[in-house]
């Protein structure tokens, strides 16, 4: 029974949108007549969403939060990959630093906030340092793993063709470690979003986390839920963005694995 291409596409769309649509409808009606102080109707939350986040706050709060996340994340990538390559490449350095890195990685970043607060002043730098304190570890440790696992035959090939220095670093070391680095980068992004929010609590800053906390403490629950919804959408959007970057940067890698699986 060959399916018509149209039918095929329709079915796929139904599968993708089916459950979410059902959940939204259930949420809409379950909360529709709720006079409950906290659990506001979905309609009210969506109105609050449009009024709160699509207005001036988009520039005043959402943008600063995202820019801090971007700066913290970028710094973590540079720091994590840079240090990771060094530590991954030299056996002694790795043995020397491994326990220290394992300890620092294990400290939950939020626990560092009271300490970072003592140094990093009150401005953006404090929040960026907090983001880095969480994001750098997955990238660093995955880079070390990736650099350690460079294929020896490829390394010998480079040596015999006298491929050295910067070309070697880029073409052999970084490229072969890139699948592992991307795994670390994905984990770091998830942690980054969390720290973006947490670094804004209990302080004064233009940001999503701060706004949501203000809504909560001033009992403006529709706005609070709309903030939660925004963070959800942000998480999804960034995950999607990451997948695009991943398929572009690791195009070769996904192809390689697909072809191995077939063979």
């Amino acid at each position: 029974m060959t399916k018509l291409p149209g039918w095929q596409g329709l079915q796929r769309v139904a599968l993708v949108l089916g459950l979410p649509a059902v959940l939204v409808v259930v949420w809409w009606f379950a909360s529709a007549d709720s006079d409950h102080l906290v659990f506001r109707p979905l309609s009210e939350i969506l109105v609050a969403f449009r009024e709160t986040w699509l207005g001036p706050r988009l520039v005043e709060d959402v943008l600063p939060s995202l820019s801090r996340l971007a700066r913290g994340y970028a710094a973590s990538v540079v720091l994590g990959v840079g240090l990771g390559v060094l530590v991954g490449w030299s056996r002694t350095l790795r043995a020397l630093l491994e326990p220290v890195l394992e300890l620092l990685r294990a400290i939950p970043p939020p626990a560092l906030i009271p300490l970072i607060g003592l140094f990093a002043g009150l401005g953006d730098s404090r929040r960026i340092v907090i983001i880095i304190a969480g994001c750098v570890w997955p990238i660093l440790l995955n880079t070390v793993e990736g650099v350690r696992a460079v294929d020896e035959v490829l390394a010998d090939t480079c040596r015999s063709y006298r491929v050295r220095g910067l070309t070697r670093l880029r073409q052999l070391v970084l490229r072969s470690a890139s699948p592992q680095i991307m795994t670390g980068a994905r984990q770091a992004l998830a942690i980054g979003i969390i720290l973006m929010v947490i670094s804004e609590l209990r302080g004064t800053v233009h940001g999503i986390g701060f706004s949501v906390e203000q809504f909560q403490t001033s009992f403006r629950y529709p706005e609070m839920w709309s903030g939660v919804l925004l963070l959800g959408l942000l998480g999804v959007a960034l995950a999607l963005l990451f997948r695009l970057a991943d398929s572009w940067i690791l195009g070769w890698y996904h192809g390689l694995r697909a072809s191995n699986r077939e063979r």
Partner: protein
Amino acid sequence: MRRKLAALLISSALLVAAGCGDDGGGDGDGDNGAGQPTGPDQVSVGLIPIVDVAPLFLGQEQGFFAARDIELATDFGAGGANLIPGVESGQLDFGFSNVISLMLAQAGGIEIKAVSNGNNSTGTQGEDFGSLLVPVDSDVQSAADLEGATVATNTLSNIVETIVRASVRNDGGDPSTVEFVGVPFPEMEAALAGGDVDAAFAVEPFQTIIRTNEVGRSVAWSWVDAAPDLTVAAYFTSAELAENNPDLVARFSEAMAESLAYANDNPDAVRAILPTYTEISEELAAELTLPTWPPEINRASSEALAQQAVQDGLLSEPPDLDALYP
């Protein structure tokens, strides 16, 4: 019960199948049934580990609560503002919060009720448990000089803003130009030392730490400026508990009143108990300026405070103190 059901529904929806329901709730959910007492009532109280709540621990130590069939389970919430939802949702039986937060909650539709006084200012200029501090080398001499300045406060749009504005206003300055920045108490010393803020309103033990480390000096005593013998904070409960179990609330209030009086008369006992529930060392505890703990809430001071909060735009209209206060 309806509220609890809704909470269960939403939290289970959130966790898909793994709703962790109510059973994992607060340690002692308070046997708030009005049935015959089967032993001391397990009562959970949400607190912040600060000087102001010393009387409660003294009362516990002196057995004022035990004498009234109450066994306390203290729970240190992450912040005053978070205690209100805890009490309102029934997870905590009683909580401690400043009066402005209580008024804001009432305005926000939260049904809570103050049951006993918390703590008051010393009422004397130049010596109070909290003050407005500026860096030692700052040229600010009094509150009025803080026009257009940035002032650190532990919570934004809350009681500290109202009283600091009162200090500036009483000193002849224009309070609307003061800009407030949220800084947790432990980080105020660094903020002052680093010059990130022009001033900071700190309470004990940080007021003493900042002064003895010569990082800052006091220029105004805002609790005193706001209103004479200001009631700063109070213990509160949910309207539901007050309704369902008036006996327990009454017993708690009496025990609290006795504890407050005892604390007021025995400052040394207060200084001795501080290190047991906070991380304030004995030496530091000895140097602190303690608040006062009169048993009764100073309602006049709350009215004056509320009037200034309305003037500053923090409250849209004056609170209904009859409903809010015992």
